[in-house]
């Protein structure tokens, strides 16, 4: 450009051009006018421009929180908690909010698909934020799909067919249970990664051993004055986080008394541990010892004969082994012994050690010191849901290994998978992929193109949770017995079909005993047959004169629950009358670091495909969109590792790579990694992002059948690579630009 062509001239010319362009395009009718489609038949309760609200149940995890979804013109706009629902009282967690990003996710399975195993289900590029990534189109009709299932039911013998299901929804599990028991098929098996990381099998087994009855303990944090938590991450994903968070508020606000005291024992500060008044980083493996030592000290403080349970422990030795000051234990024991509402909670990685069951029992036994079983601020047995006679927990990893072996042996010829993604959620050590290859026919009912769907022969997508009928039994968290109801809040967005309806149609097609096993017109009729007996139950929070009214109210209120408390008081006679050996667990591997894997509080096991969950800052590290490995800054300095250096974490069973985050609140001999990323499918926002710490696990189990995810020692190796991990705490950005550090 010549010197004479001044900036002013340029602006003049550009101005003329821009004006003309604006007039021709910007203000033209083509850009201004839109098309609007009115309802063909307006529902009578709808007004234009006004929202309609529907009560349903959240399906992001199996806790069963009630939702009220705001819809407008047939679209779901916002989820809110159902204020009447006794479990969550109008609140939701971040995942409940982001459920709409699942419903309107750009990568969903759009219809029934016949599929070659291993083939992509959507186009993918390195950069998921630009370009178009179309999903694989449906290539079957639902009639074909029905035929496929009917063929599978007739072609294979009953014991060659298996159902693998997620922890939600319960109505489908009940349907499949009824269906399989009436036709002689294998009973369905359920699994979820959350229950694996909670070590739920260990927790419920410990409760069974101590109290002599099955059931999941509930810890009334809200009524307590002091809480000792041994790694339980009850503010994150543990069991039912919303009622526990509410309990935590109660503890802090201490409405009637003073502010409650909260102590957390764990080797890596979790989001929950970050809220503790005292965070005590004990050495992994000494949790049982510390609990027993506290028990003995507290008992001595209170006086009286020392019970068998705490007789053998030497508190001073225990303190030394755990790396805690003896005075700290003494002080806490005094606090614990003197308060009326004193609560001890087992959880976290400690239960995933070879002595996990003993840890759980020892910590639970602490609650016998103030004898707070079945009392306010103490330990209850969770209320059973209205239609339940005993607590059904999801399969433990050990049971999943047995199931995997069955698949691998070729015993199972047809596998139906719903609501769970075993190829991601099960540790690699179980080798589920190889087992799946041995199964002749794999049918997935996945809503999203997850890893397991990619390895299926057919994908017959179920509706998204917000498009579905159903119910969910609330297994813990509320004093009341709750059956949480679900109804579609919007009509299905894609050509999906409810799995119950599909199975019903297939059963009809086969006829004979299959048709007779489930004599229902459709899914709704089945659900209503299950909820109908509740109409005549006493103490329901609503009453109905007839069944149609009951069904309508069930839908309107989002479920049915009792008005009275159904908390069980555990039988505590034998709690302290037992021996603990206090032996330390075996750790697997030669490495110098204990590995603490934890579930990402924002993503959990299935949140990675929702972009807003990915962009939520992790509550402790504020990292977004990534997997990181937490290392104590001093250790990092010794190893000459800095933030964002990529390291290789190596166990005897696998290796993963992740960028380092120097985390100041972790033991120098421990490293930690979040679980939730590392997908190889599951939509554009999840795929190819981060790593999965479950790849490091060994296929070994504790006495209760939980995998030893907390019992690993690993090595780390530098790779020389760098990977910027975005994090909220660094408002300057993480690329080092503009800081003079180039």
């Amino acid at each position: 450009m010549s010197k004479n062509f001044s900036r002013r001239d340029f602006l003049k010319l550009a101005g003329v051009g821009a004006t003309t362009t604006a007039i021709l395009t910007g203000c033209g009718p083509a850009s201004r006018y839109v098309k609007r489609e009115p309802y063909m038949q307006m529902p009578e309760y709808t007004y234009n421009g006004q929202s309609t609200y529907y009560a349903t149940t959240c399906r992001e995890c199996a806790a069963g929180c009630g939702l009220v979804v705001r819809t407008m013109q047939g679209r779901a706009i916002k989820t809110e908690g159902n204020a009447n629902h006794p479990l969550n009282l109008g609140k939701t967690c971040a995942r409940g909010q982001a459920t709409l990003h699942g419903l309107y996710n750009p990568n969903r399975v759009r219809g029934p698909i016949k599929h070659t195993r291993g083939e992509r289900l959507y186009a993918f590029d390195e950069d998921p934020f630009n370009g178009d990534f179309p999903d694989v189109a449906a290539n079957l009709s639902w009639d074909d799909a029905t035929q496929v299932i009917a063929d599978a039911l007739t072609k294979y013998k009953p014991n060659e067919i298996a159902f693998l299901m997620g922890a939600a929804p319960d109505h489908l599990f009940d349907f499949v249970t009824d269906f399989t028991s009436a036709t002689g098929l294998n009973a369905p098996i359920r699994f979820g990664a959350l229950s694996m990381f909670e070590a739920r099998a260990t927790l419920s087994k410990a409760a069974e051993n101590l109290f002599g009855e099955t059931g999941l303990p509930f810890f009334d944090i809200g009524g307590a004055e002091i809480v000792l938590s041994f790694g339980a991450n009850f503010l994150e994903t543990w069991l039912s986080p919303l009622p526990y968070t509410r309990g935590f508020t109660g503890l802090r606000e201490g409405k009637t008394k003073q502010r409650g005291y909260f102590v957390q024992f764990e080797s890596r500060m979790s989001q929950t541990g970050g809220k503790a008044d005292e965070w005590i980083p004990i050495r992994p493996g000494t949790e049982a010892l510390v609990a027993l030592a506290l028990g003995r000290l507290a008992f001595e403080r209170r006086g009286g004969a020392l019970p068998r349970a705490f007789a053998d422990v030497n508190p001073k030795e225990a303190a030394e082994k755990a790396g805690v000051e003896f005075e700290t234990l003494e002080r806490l024991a005094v606090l614990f012994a003197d308060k009326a509402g004193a609560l001890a909670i087992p959880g976290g990685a400690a239960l995933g050690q070879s002595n996990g069951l003993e840890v759980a029992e020892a910590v639970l036994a602490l609650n016998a010191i103030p004898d707070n079983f079945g009392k306010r601020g103490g330990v209850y047995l969770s209320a059973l849901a209205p239609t339940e006679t005993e607590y059904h927990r999801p399969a433990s990893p050990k049971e999943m290994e047995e199931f995997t072996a069955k698949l691998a042996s070729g015993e199972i010829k047809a596998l139906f998978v719903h609501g769970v993604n075993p190829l991601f959620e099960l540790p690699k050590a179980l080798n589920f992929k190889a087992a799946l290859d041995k199964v002749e026919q794999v049918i997935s009912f996945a809503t999203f193109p997850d890893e397991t769907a990619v390895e299926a022969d057919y994908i017959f997508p179920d509706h998204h949770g917000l498009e579905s009928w159903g119910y969910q039994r609330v297994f813990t968290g509320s004093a009341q017995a709750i059956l949480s109801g679900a109804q579609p809040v919007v009509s299905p967005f894609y050509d999906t079909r409810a799995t119950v309806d599909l199975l019903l149609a297939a059963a009809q097609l086969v006829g004979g005993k299959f048709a007779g096993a489930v004599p229902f017109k459709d899914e709704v009729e089945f659900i209503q047959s299950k909820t109908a007996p509740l109409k005549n139950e006493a103490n329901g929070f609503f009453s109905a004169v007839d069944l149609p009214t009951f069904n309508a109210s069930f839908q309107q209120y989002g479920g049915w629950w009792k008005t009275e408390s159904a908390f069980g008081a555990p039988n505590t006679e034998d709690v302290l009358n037992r021996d603990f050996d206090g032996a330390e667990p075996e750790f697997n591997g030669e490495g110098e670091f204990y590995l603490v894997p934890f579930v990402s509080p924002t993503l959990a096991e299935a949140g990675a495909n929702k972009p807003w969950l990915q962009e939520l800052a992790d509550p402790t590290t504020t990292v977004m969109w990534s997997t990181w490995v937490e290392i104590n800054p001093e250790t990092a300095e010794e190893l000459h590792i800095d933030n964002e250096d990529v390291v290789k974490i190596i166990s005897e069973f696998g290796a993963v790579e992740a960028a380092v985050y120097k985390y100041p609140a972790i033991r120098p001999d421990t490293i930690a990694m979040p679980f939730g990323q590392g997908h190889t499918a599951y939509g554009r926002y999840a795929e190819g992002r981060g790593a999965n710490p479950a790849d490091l696990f060994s296929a070994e189990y504790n006495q209760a059948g939980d995998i030893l995810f907390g019992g690993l020692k690993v090595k780390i190796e530098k790779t020389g690579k760098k990977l910027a991990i975005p994090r909220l705490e660094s408002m300057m950005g993480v690329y080092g630009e503009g800081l003079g550090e180039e």
Partner: protein
Amino acid sequence: MIKRLFDWLKQPLGLIAVGIVFLAVFSVAVYGLSLTQKAPDQPIQFPHNKHVGFGIQCLYCHPGASKGPNAGLPSQAKCWACHNQIARTQTSELLAPLKNAVESGTPIQWVPVAQVPDFVQFNHRAHIAAGKNCEDCHGDMTKVTVAENPQVFNMGFCLDCHVKTAGEDKVLLNKLADCGTCHY
């Protein structure tokens, strides 16, 4: 180079060229402007004048106006409630789209003409409640056939009325002339 261009433009031929370019730009601009004033094509040549002439109230078809933000478009079921009793509906060519839509169960795609930009949050209810009549903004529908945009809904039009309504009432003026009343 620019200087040579200007020198050339100053001679008669150059002036004519400038004139031609100016005329071309101007006429294109005028054409563009005229396009913005044209009502869009509608799927049905809906005569508002006839319907209003029959004495049908605005709120019969646009009931949302008194309830909430949107006046709303009537569902075809509502059209059909009257029209299926009118013999001409079956034969009239102009009404064929309605008949087709009802019979095939496809929604009619209307093109709304009275629009505000996306960054304006308009609420019909408050205006009706404040005593405004439909024709104050939308014009006299007894004179309109296919709906036209009788009024440019720009900020001056809205604010004029807001300020007038408030009059001397300073508190009300604060409210009605607040940016946050419409923009959020």
